């Protein structure tokens, strides 16, 4: 999968959120919460697809957040 501009932007945004969430505790939960509150469902599901198909581009915390989203059914 080659990432287009939009997907690259999503990756950048997600990694940036991972690097900036306020508390060092439960980073994955905070990222999941942030993208649930501020992203469209389509953006979240695109991120999930990128996580599966291009895992290397996403920070490990973002993968953990995707797992949280998947678990509570809001990831897609």
């Amino acid at each position, binding site marked *: 999968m080659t990432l*287009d*501009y*939009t997907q690259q*932007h*999503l990756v950048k*945004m997600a990694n*940036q*959120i991972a*690097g*900036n969430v*306020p*508390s*060092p505790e439960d980073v994955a939960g905070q990222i999941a919460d*942030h993208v649930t*509150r*501020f*992203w*469209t*469902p*389509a*953006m979240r599901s695109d991120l999930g697809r990128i996580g599966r198909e291009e895992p290397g581009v996403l920070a490990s915390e973002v993968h953990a957040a995707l797992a949280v989203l998947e678990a509570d059914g809001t990831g897609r």
Partner: protein
Amino acid sequence: MNKPIEFDPAELDLGTPATLATETVTVLIDGTEVVVPAGTSVMRAASLAGTQIPKLCATDRLDAFGSCRMCLVEIEGRRGTPASCTTPCEEGMSVRTQTPRLDKLRKGVMELYISDHPLDCLTCAANGDCELQDTAGAVGLRSVRYPEARANHLSAGTDSSNPYFSFDASKCIVCSRCVRACSEVQGTFALTIAGRGFESKVSPSEEDSFLDSECVSCGACVQACPTATLQEKRVIDLGVPTRKVKTTCAYCGVGCSFVAELRGDELVRMVPDKQGGANAGHSCVKGRFAWGYASHPDRVTRPMIRDSINDDWREVDWQEAIAFTADRFKAIQTEYGVDALGGITSSRCTNEEVYVVQKMVRAALGTNNVDTCARVCHSPTGYGLKQTFGTSAGTQDFASVEQSDVIMVIGANPTDAHPVFGSRMKKRLRQGAKLVVIDPRSIDLVRSPHVAASHHLQLQPGTNVAVLNALAHVVATEGYIDEDFVRERCDLASFNAWRRFIELPENSPEHLAEISGVSADLIRSAAATYAGGGNGAIYYGLGVTEHSQGSTMVMAMANLAMATGNIGRQGVGVNPLRGQNNVQGACDMGSFPHEFSGYRHVSDDSVREQFTALWGVGLREDPGMRIPNMLDAAVSGQFRGIYIQGEDIAQSDPNSHHVEEALKAMDCVVVQDLFLNETSRYAHVFLPGTSFLEKDGTFTNAERRINRVRPVVPPASGMAEWQVTCALSAAMGYPMDYGHASEIMDEIAALTPTFTGVSFDLLEARGSVQWPCNDAAPDGTPIMHEQRFVRGEGQFVTTPYVPTDERSTRKFPLLLTTGRILSQYNVGAQTRRTENTIWHAEDILDIHEADAELRGVGDGDWIEVSSRAGSTRMRARISGDIPAGVVYTTFHHPISGTNVITTDNSDWATNCPEYKVTAVEIRPASAAEAVPA
């Protein structure tokens, strides 16, 4: 509802300003008892009792001066005839304002003035609006005994250099009101009385012309002048106005109130309203004079459509334009689904106009894809203050600054971008408050007449959070925490986590000095000043928000204010200085894709139920796309149509090439605006908008003050903007029936807990009100979080410093930061169409001498500025205001295309673009031309 305002007793000039004293004294004025606050002048007491004492040098906008000797009175038990403007009332004082002796004295004084004044009253521009004329009448002067051959000033010349007002020295009575207005009210000190005795005359600094002087054209002197000496050129050309309409300036977030004065239907001048809650009778050059764009020949007043952006525009009637748009929008919905459409609301439009656009998007288009141009300026304020305090707004009213002891200005330039508030702040600084400036540039406040910052933290662009953390580290480790405040008002668990974090050595000034470029000593001293100097207030601007850590920085400032107990009373607080007039209102009105009005998340079932019940339509529970997401989705083909209210995203949003690519990819771009602009080059529908002079509604300023905007002239296009939006909504199958803008506000009030008490009737009665205005606060709320925070307890948030990706590199070694100047406004669509261009005909790049020399760039040379996003050209100016390694420019002119070079980096939480840091390289343009593309 919109009656012209006739005589308003509140407009009466009482001669001297009110005192703040709470004790009162009782005096007798011509036998009538009057009770006034202690310290009130005899002149003011007499005015309050209904007796106007003749005056020339006194006005209630300025401190008494006592130079003209016109206002003499007799006081029982006192010798002589003291000046009533400079004599304070004392308990039991008995004053006579009319006696034969006083009449004679006043006539004598007036005779002297008139003997040196051109007697051309009948042909004078101020005939009927001249205090000298009125006073001569009031004292009954009928003849002048002095021979005309006596030495006089009747042949003194006129200075017409200012584009908006002229100075006719022959009419000057040297009352010094202009000089005092310039120093006391505006704080510019551009005028002096040069010479002595008969030789004395008003003079702009260094005997320059007004244009070449320090004058910033605020108009305060013109307002203060009792004669036709300083006079608006339009009054000279058109004559004295005959009717008035009160309204609100549509430029910056100060939200100054004005009285629009007209002759028939022609606007003659805008005069700052003394009753204005935000401005108390002051103004800046933009609101006072730069409104001519509203009748500029470039205005588009008929709707236009075209099939493709390569076609010419075709003028059509409203019906056809609306039908064309609805057809295209419906076709998009059918083929690509409802989320292929969206809208952008404008911070330049009224609350009512914004509200109907977001309602149309949510209810008629069936999507939450609505965002506002505040995305690119203050979205981090919304996020950061909501997280920490519980609501997305500044904490104070503007008047609060008058009780601050230490003022911290971060990433803002109030004297240029928020001039009327800047003047108020300077007044407090002249009274002795301390000033800490955190900015890469040496803004005017750092050193200006009678004002100097005690600390200027000249940090590297992009290191705000590092500096705030270092300040907070000092507060936490050196005993400046207000433990009582924190214990009583804040969430302790979050405070303790923050304290552990902020005390880490990595947040110490010493550790962060190298990164930020600010010495540890300076940070320690600034922290001690802010935290230990009494009432500490923070004011900030886009230099805080437009960063990759904009939201973090807002929370860092909130932490600092809470930790030091600087919240919840007069003189303190955390205050965003909003760029556009209605940024606050546009955000309040539910313009963000994740929030309804009043900042309530779309996923909140109970909130959605209220809206559904009133709007009669199901609403989506997931957030929609933000502007950058819409543009990205457009490039990848999923987002096909947009309604853009009053914003030129192709010029104002970052990385213009990407924006243009996105706009080009859409099937239906609708622009609602005054002028064709960069964005409309890619539009299929152009819906003519209304200027602020045609609008009927409300704006909400940076202090949450809801001000009325009243129509001064009818809409040039025949339709109010909200009516156009409603027509489109109806054509999309969702009619919105409002008979008047006030009904839209009634609906806002019904659905928004912080607005329940707001109505046009209330605003008519009170002038303005600051939200929250509801049952709990029927008079509004000047100061927020007084007893408790809106969210209950104040929430501390840890704020680790994360450097931006945008760093200087070998290829792009300089950091570009952007700002604005006084005479221009944003992308300049309005101000460029006024005579303000005399002050700023082009955008210029400021560069440090060493950086210029290294690149062979001289002052005034054409240069090419390039970043990884693109390149543009402008002229360079060698400047000492910025440190080496940093360059600075404004973005007021499309030709300089500043956003061609800004990148798509943005705030991590809100996607607010990182305008304030772009790595660039500069080279002389001639050399650049020689380089193949």
